[in-house]
């Protein structure tokens, strides 16, 4: 029962896929192939990320992260969050487990949000590619406006989400925390 509840979304999509397959074999096959490729891609990209995070989690002391990204890390914390996010590559869902470890280690909530924003739009490898395909003016303008926007969005969400809510989000990761 627990298994069904956990995998509810997956099972639901599979039911849709199978119904499509019954009605339209060609389209259904395409969907299954693309889904299979998504899983293979994920299995290729994800292992080193989780491995590095596991190592980071055991070796980097909480104090270090608090100092760099926690309360009172100020402008430096913001800049480091932007740098960490933009140095990355890969889809946004790769950023979520990283954010989890950052929260576990006591990084400030607004810095987590800035990191997520930077990962989603400021990635340097993507930026270089964007310049060559859409032009320098387009890419540079987007990059600059996005930096401002990401910080504003982070500040705004940080204001709206109450301290209790933040505690609840962080609390999810407290249980398996290393002291």
């Amino acid at each position, binding site marked *: 029962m627990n298994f069904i509840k956990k995998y509810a979304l997956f099972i639901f999509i599979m039911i849709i896929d199978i119904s499509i397959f019954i009605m339209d074999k060609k389209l259904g096959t395409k969907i299954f192939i693309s*889904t299979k490729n998504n899983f293979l891609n994920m299995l290729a990209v994800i292992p080193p990320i989780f491995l590095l995070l596991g190592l980071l989690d055991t070796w980097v002391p909480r104090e270090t992260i608090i100092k760099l990204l926690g309360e009172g890390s100020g402008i430096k914390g913001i800049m480091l969050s932007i740098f960490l996010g933009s140095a990355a590559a890969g889809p946004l869902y790769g950023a979520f487990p990283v954010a989890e470890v950052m929260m576990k280690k006591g990084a400030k909530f607004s810095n987590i949000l800035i990191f997520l924003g930077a990962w989603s739009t400021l990635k340097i490898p993507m930026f270089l590619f964007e310049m060559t395909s859409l032009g320098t003016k387009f890419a540079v303008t987007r990059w600059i406006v996005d930096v401002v926007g990401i910080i504003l969005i982070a500040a705004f969400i940080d204001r709206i989400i109450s301290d209790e809510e933040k505690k609840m*989000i962080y609390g999810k990761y407290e249980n398996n925390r290393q002291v």
Partner: protein
Amino acid sequence: MFTVVMYILAVIFLIVSFFKDRKKTKMALKKAWKSFENILPAFAGVLALIGLVMTVLTPDIISKIIGANTGFLGMFLTSIIGSITLIPGFVAFPLAATLLQKGAGVMQIAVFISTLMMVGFVTLPLEISYFGKRVAFLRNVLSYIFSFIVALIIGMVVR
């Protein structure tokens, strides 16, 4: 390329960690596995959803919709497509460039690129499982609105 670098880094750090402290290395591996196991159900659902949506909404269909429309309606349509789909950058940028050459508006394309990167409708279940409903919704809604601002500014700068 990025994946190769990540693998090399992971292996190097793993070896260093192993020689420094075997117990801690074992713990790190356990933690890595546990956090992967925790997120696997949401991950599997989202990957299946992407497989479904991306097969039905091909780049071909997308280019037809964008190419046929201009003005705010075009922007609105591209923003919806950008929010729902998950096209990797190395496909999205050339697609956007082709559409621009075919006469699509800069602002429509800008809003498409911006929502594509910042707003993740199909990954929402995953985001919620990490940060809770409120944060996930707020981040996506604000990013959606912000994408139009970015597009307006890019439209003014790029002619």
